[in-house]
């Protein structure tokens, strides 16, 4: 079982790096926003895997709090982008 956890962590880490490359080189802000959403989901999964490895359910609270507030941040950026495209 620890082998599976290690491989899952490595896979999530690699996909996080791919998403962050898209955040850095993304041409427009919408690309960066979508990549931020993707990286946020993978980070939540990585938090859950870390909580399982550490064996303490306290770490799951962090994943829950980030899933709420990360969605709030993505929603704010999306509203900003839509209002800016409406005003043009």
């Amino acid at each position, binding site marked *: 079982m620890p082998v599976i956890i290690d491989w899952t962590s490595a896979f999530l880490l690699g996909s996080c790096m791919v998403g962050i490359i898209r955040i*850095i080189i993304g041409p427009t*802000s919408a690309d960066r926003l979508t990549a931020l959403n993707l990286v946020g989901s993978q980070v939540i999964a990585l938090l859950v895997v*870390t909580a399982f490895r550490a064996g*303490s359910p306290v*770490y799951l609270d962090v994943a829950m709090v980030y899933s709420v*507030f*990360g969605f709030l941040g993505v929603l704010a950026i999306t509203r900003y982008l839509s209002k800016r495209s409406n005003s043009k």
Partner: protein
Amino acid sequence: MSIVIIGTFGAIMIAAAIFAIYSQNILSAIISAGVISLLASIIYILLAAPDVAMTEAAIGSGLTTVVFLLALRRIQVNQAEKEDGSAEEVIDD
């Protein structure tokens, strides 16, 4: 494994910070700051500080993005009014 994760995320945080400083688009800089807070939250978890990580995820990655976007929208509204020629009223407010 956690050493690998901490090293990788630390390097990515440095790259994102440099990008946030030198980016010309302010919205991209705000998104990059959100990435920095998110990865800092992961590093806090791996260093066995879950309460600090929870505060970082709530305030650093959630509320700071919203506050920065509100400030950015207000700055751009002020600039649009200044282009219309009513800059004195905005400054007096």
